[in-house]
């Protein structure tokens, strides 16, 4: 009798494919989380519209790929570009008027953006079931008896690579150092001659591009549905909360954990239907742990 069988769980074989999907989704959660954390620390804004932006980008890609004769890669680029442009525009337009307010107000404001996008998506594309094709999903390879497609590889790789790039960027470039300085103390940094607006704009733009890419991947891994994609931000949020909204490396790990746990619950039939509660459960545990130690959210690391 194997251990899983003793616990009434399906055997190891059944879990294996879910490890793959879990890691792939985890990669996207991780990269989304990293994007959100860097933006939050640089500007004080926790962008809750992250998912909505990516979702709309994915819809635009779908529209371009299925209803025009333009080559597919233009659609993908449009998705990523849309993410960057919309997020940057929001940041430039609504960042300054809310700059002095607290983090909660700024986050609630992004919900305004989320609603606008949700309404627009629902209006233009309605609720029909759609899927977004990526060429990388059609080919793959086998690992340990499980099929892995290239989109999943990209998702995992994207997560890891972006995190490493971000950590290096924050530590070794001027803009990155400026972002860390802003995270530590906005007022002093502004007086040091750091071009605050430009640094913030970079943060907005890059996190927007990431949200576009994340939307593209998720639309393919999960499905092209406005509400689902928008609220997948909750899983990325859980990762950022576990990392206390400050550690980029921890966000990466947390993203993968959220993705993995979520997926691994699937074959456990007794609780499978509740697997989407995973982000909530994990984030609550993390918050309970943090509040016990009464730690304050620290600067960007």
């Amino acid at each position, binding site marked *: 009798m194997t251990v899983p069988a003793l616990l009434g769980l399906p055997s190891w074989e059944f879990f294996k494919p879910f490890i793959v999907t879990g890691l792939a989704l985890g990669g996207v959660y991780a990269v989304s989380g990293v994007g959100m954390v860097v933006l939050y620390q640089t500007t004080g804004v926790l962008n809750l519209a992250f998912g909505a932006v990516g979702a709309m980008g994915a819809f635009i890609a779908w529209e371009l790929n299925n209803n025009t004769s333009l080559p597919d890669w233009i659609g993908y680029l449009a998705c990523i570009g849309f993410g960057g442009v919309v997020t940057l525009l929001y940041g430039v337009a609504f960042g300054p008027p*809310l700059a002095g307010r607290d*983090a909660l107000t700024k986050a609630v404001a992004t919900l305004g953006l989320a609603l606008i996008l949700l309404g627009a998506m629902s209006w233009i594309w309605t609720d029909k079931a759609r899927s977004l094709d990526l060429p990388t999903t059609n080919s793959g390879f086998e690992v340990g008896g499980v099929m892995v497609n290239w989109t999943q590889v990209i998702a995992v790789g994207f997560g890891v690579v972006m995190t490493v790039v971000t950590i290096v960027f924050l530590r070794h470039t001027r803009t990155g150092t400026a972002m860390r300085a802003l995270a530590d103390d906005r007022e002093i940094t502004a007086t040091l001659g750091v071009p605050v607006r430009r640094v913030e704009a970079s943060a907005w733009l890059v996190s927007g591009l990431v949200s576009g890419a994340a939307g593209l991947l998720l639309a393919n891994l999960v499905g092209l549905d406005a509400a689902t994609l928008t609220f997948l931000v909750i899983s990325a949020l859980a990762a950022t909360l576990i990392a206390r909204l400050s550690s980029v490396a921890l966000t990466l790990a947390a993203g993968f954990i959220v993705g993995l746990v979520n997926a691994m619950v699937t074959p456990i039939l007794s609780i499978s239907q509740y697997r989407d509660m995973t982000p909530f459960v994990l984030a609550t545990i993390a918050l309970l742990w943090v509040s016990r130690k009464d730690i304050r959210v620290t600067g960007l690391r």
Partner: protein
Amino acid sequence: MSLDRPARIHAGVIVALLAFLVLALPSMLSAYWVDVTTSVVIYAVVALGLGLLMGRVGLVSLGQIAILGLGAWVAARLTYATSLPYPIVLLLAGAMSAVLGTLVGLPALRLSGLFLALITLMLAGAITVVLTTTQFPNGGPGFLGHTDSSLGSNAIRRPAVASSDTGYFRYTTLVAVLMFGVVVLHLRSKAGRAWAAIRQSEASALAAGVNITRYKLWALALASFITGIAGGLLAGSVGKLYIVQFPISGNILLLAAVLMGGIYTLWGAVAAGLLIKLLPALLDNWGLPPDLLTILFGVGILQVLITAPEGIAVQLPRDLGRLAGLLSRPFQRNQAAREEAP
């Protein structure tokens, strides 16, 4: 307690409005619009809870619609499984919601308002997931009380005195008035003063001896309580509950409506109820897509946060007052001219 003139006029207006609402309005409306008005009243109570949290204590909850769904579930289950009188059913729905709201608030309160908002958003996600699976009671067997067979075709019971749509509307309005009364009593009491202190400055509240965590939890419990009761009212109103009535986006739309209606006055809750339930019905009536409303609410959030943080309920009377002032100026000038003339 004697009231001064403005307060007496205010009270008089409210009483007159309520009398009209309860006695005259139902006979003037078709069944569909009686239904809509009932929803407006129910969601005004939900908005009251969120407005209390945001305007008086400075807390944001992104899970109130989920709690509404929970309250509805509890009420539905109780009406099928027991023959408890309706007021008891409502109270139990409210109590369970209060317990959940407090439990969720506990870990997050000591961290910051942002964390509380996020954890309530996740709670909304969690409850939605659970309710999607367990679905709502409809007369079936077992703890969950749901069945897919035709056995589940009985509507949720209503109180004996209020089984008609009009009767239920009056019953709902009465309960809603009670909820507003409970909130008003709180605001005039020790809790209300403590909340005002917390909202202004946590440091000075602490220096005044206010146990901030306890009073924040109390506000959360109260808001969840009245939302749970609203859920019970909703269950009886619609007769059949489905998870699509409680989407996650609903939590955000509620937040938008409460912000736009105004979080610093009780009228704001009424305005929010109208925004959430009357506007969609009107749009539907005029053949416009409901997505327009979603976009409008999104714009509303941004507008309120950037320009008019007090919301329509304060802004509108103020605008109207300014308008009235402008309109009356020509008459004042004439008056002055007449007085000056020999």
